[in-house]
């Protein structure tokens, strides 16, 4: 049985294929469209997933769409009409968007794929998130906590899940209704701090580490914990009526002051051991506000976790929804929630919505039985092994790209590009050469196989450097990624050596630690080795690499350790600021041309800039 999952029309639209209960392909539209968080109909992602699964559209039995457009319409109408007679313009805008877009989704799917509308089903949004997290976790039973901006009507919900008898049972156990939304609250603070909503929440999280939660009490006036572990939001502090404006009310501004202008650069930096030049009182204030909302969010989620543990008695917890991208929060949940195992899927937000919808649909079919112990991994994107690039790459040496770069190069005059194709059996030599380049302080673009799902680079679309090399890290930030200096990097380390760096990994690896889903303190004696991948608080967001899951990347880590004595590598997503992660070798080649990446590995092809 083949199920096509689709999510669209909010952010991070995506497609997925589930075959007989196993997720075989999933991809976000942004990976094909050059538009970060692309919410448009995922026509390109659908084609890529079908191709990856070796299917024609006619072989699809069901299509699972990630939410009910009619329910969403009723929620949006209710939100807009509440303020009647004020708020006509937001009402008109929302209605226009829905009337010209999502309400016709069955027609869009039919037009794009030829799949008959009778095969298309709407899956409750949070049920999809919960099903994805649970199915991927491999747990026999678990409590599942879904936290995002909003589903149809729920903004936080929790489920009891089990796979007893092979059935995927995911049953709702409680919720906090819209508009009491932790996701929207965190996003509102993100906007207040001068960052882009639904995009730069990671910046709020990064900034939080430079501050102290001095204003947590003020935030608690807005987000009030209830005695039973749930919460309530004082809505008088917000104005969600117009999606094009900062969604806070005058009352919020009276409490927190003027929003930070996006033009003012923040002086904080992860380099120089966190000693920041000229931090003004105002800058520190915003960092403290970030720390406050982060701390209050974490406390609220821990209270929810305690409630779930009490009510379900489960030993395992799955986290899902966009808020589960908050790695600092996840770290605290792992350490403090009391659950024995905590799992976060690689794409817990709407990028994983298509996979979730498809899995939920399969789980709810009367005759469906989940396969026993399905091995799950995040490398389910498209692969481009048939794509020919050698002819292009071999003629790039004559190119001068300097005139067409917004980021000036610091590499010096480009004399040419050298190119070498390795035999697939000669991977040892390739890994050895790349390790030598890393040792020389070079920035390596690393692309292999199918791309990973979600926003984290997990060794298939990664930019790599020596994590102890400050100069390389600076160049990576300034001349490749155009990354704000207060945003920290992550690192990869093999499972065998992870205990050298993390106390939590000494006995067994927490599931949420495998794919950069959580931050953890690095052991004091190992910090120098990963100095450039550390945040100011001594934490990092690790990927623990299993040989069985990604053998080539694991082998590269070994080669790197042989060359340098350091088992860890700094690993960050292969993209430029404002663009999604690269997908195909052509995208990688473009970024190689536009930035200071010095060595580019495209599976078995290695390109080097000669300067």
């Amino acid at each position: 049985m083949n199920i096509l999952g689709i999510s669209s029309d909010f952010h991070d639209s995506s497609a997925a294929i589930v075959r007989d209960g196993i997720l075989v392909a999933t991809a976000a539209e942004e990976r094909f469209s050059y538009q970060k968080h692309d919410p448009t109909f995922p026509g390109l992602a659908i084609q890529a997933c079908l191709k990856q699964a070796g299917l024609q559209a006619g072989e699809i039995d069901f299509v699972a769409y990630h939410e009910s457009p009619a329910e969403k319409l009723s929620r949006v109408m209710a939100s807009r009409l509440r303020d009647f007679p004020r708020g006509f313009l937001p009402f008109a805008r929302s209605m226009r968007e829905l009337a010209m877009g999502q309400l016709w989704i069955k027609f869009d799917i039919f037009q794009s794929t030829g799949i008959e509308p009778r095969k298309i089903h709407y899956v409750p949004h949070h049920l999809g998130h919960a099903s994805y997290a649970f199915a991927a976790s491999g747990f026999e039973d678990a409590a599942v906590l879904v936290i995002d901006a909003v589903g149809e009507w729920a903004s936080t919900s929790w489920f009891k899940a089990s796979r007893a008898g092979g059935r995927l049972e995911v049953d709702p156990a409680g919720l906090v209704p819209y508009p009491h939304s932790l996701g929207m609250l965190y996003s509102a603070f993100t906007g207040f701090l001068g960052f882009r909503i639904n995009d730069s929440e990671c910046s709020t999280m990064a900034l939080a580490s430079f501050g102290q939660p001095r204003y947590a009490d003020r935030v608690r006036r807005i987000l009030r914990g209830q005695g039973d572990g749930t919460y309530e939001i004082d809505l008088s502090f917000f104005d969600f009526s117009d999606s094009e404006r900062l969604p806070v009310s005058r009352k919020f501004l009276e409490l927190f002051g003027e929003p930070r202008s996006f033009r003012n650069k923040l002086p904080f930096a992860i380099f120089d051991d966190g000693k920041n030049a000229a931090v003004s009182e105002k800058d520190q204030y915003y960092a403290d506000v970030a720390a406050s909302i982060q701390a209050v969010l974490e406390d609220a989620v821990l209270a929810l976790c305690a409630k779930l543990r009490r009510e379900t008695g489960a030993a395992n917890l799955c986290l899902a929804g966009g808020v589960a991208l908050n790695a600092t929060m996840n770290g605290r949940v792992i350490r403090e929630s009391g659950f024995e195992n905590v799992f976060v899927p690689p794409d817990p937000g709407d990028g994983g919505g298509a996979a979730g919808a498809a899995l939920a649909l399969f789980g709810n079919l009367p005759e469906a039985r989940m396969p026993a112990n399905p091995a799950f991994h995040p490398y389910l994107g498209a692969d481009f092994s048939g794509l020919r690039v050698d002819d292009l790459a071999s003629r790039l040496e004559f190119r001068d790209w300097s005139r067409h770069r917004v980021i000036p190069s610091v590499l010096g005059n480009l004399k040419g590009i050298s190119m070498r194709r390795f035999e697939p059996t000669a991977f040892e030599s390739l890994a050895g050469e790349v390790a030598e380049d890393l040792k020389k302080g070079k920035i390596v673009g690393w692309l292999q196989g199918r791309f990973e799902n979600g926003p984290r680079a997990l060794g298939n679309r990664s930019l790599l450097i020596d994590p102890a090399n400050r100069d390389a890290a600076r160049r990576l930030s300034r001349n490749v990624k155009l990354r704000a200096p207060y945003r920290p990097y992550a690192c990869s380390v093999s499972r065998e050596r992870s205990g050298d760096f993390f106390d939590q990994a000494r006995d067994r690896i927490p599931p949420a630690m495998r794919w950069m889903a959580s931050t953890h303190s690095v052991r004091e004696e190992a910090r120098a080795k990963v100095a450039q991948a550390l945040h100011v608080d001594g934490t990092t967001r690790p990927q623990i690499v299993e040989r069985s899951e990604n053998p080539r990347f694991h082998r590269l880590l070994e080669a790197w350790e042989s060359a340098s004595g350091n088992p860890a590598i700094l690993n960050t997503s292969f993209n430029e600021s404002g663009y999604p992660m690269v997908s195909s070798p052509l995208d990688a080649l473009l970024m190689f041309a536009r930035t200071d990446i010095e060595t580019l590995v495209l599976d078995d092809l290695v390109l080097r800039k000669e300067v």
Partner: protein
Amino acid sequence: MSFRLRHLLIRHVLPLTTRNSARQKTRVLQEFAQTELDSAWQSVYALPKVQDTDTRLLLFDHAVEELFHADLFSRLAAEKSPDLPGQLITRREPLIALDGKDQGRVVEFLAYLSTGETEINTDFEVYETAIPDKDIRRVIKTIREDEVWHAKDSTEQLEKMAAVEGKKLSWLRFRHLLFLAQRRYASVMGKFGTLPMTLMMFVAYALFGGIFASQARRRLSMGSGEQLGFMRRQQESFRAKLGASR
């Protein structure tokens, strides 16, 4: 004549020249950035289906430059914007379907590229004189220097490939000019088309908004128990529909 007509239209219709609103300027610059980005994307999307290496190189270089132009416009949009500009996103669809076997379709793509670049070059020539904002003029001048070469290179490649594939150039160009005109018309009508819809919404809002407002408030203040019941019913109904469809 065509140049004068464009000058007239751009000077009196384009918000960059007619309005001082920073938001409008930002919006138009974002649209320019999106056009350049889409052009880069079209080239990268077409590239794997093209066999001739010279054409492939042309498309690659084209993509590098168009991405650069998109970045220039995006940066300028952020500079001109009074507040953090939102993202402008459009759905990506290949303009010319290529399958990798029929290289005659590649000539169609090159015709699109050549015609499009020539047209943009002419437009930008007008913008350079019509737009009062110096920063915008400077960026457009930088980009136009590239577009002149794009138009020349893509036309040369088109001529070469058309000769190989035995296609008639003037007919190709004419068809693609019509295609461009149709796209522009659709884009303009798309913008005006929202107006009647907004008017209809206004009438509906004014007539019925008051009736449904109290219901809306009641629905939004529903307690979590009631909402949970609703969520369970939604899941049951989903299961029932699935069961019925088997």
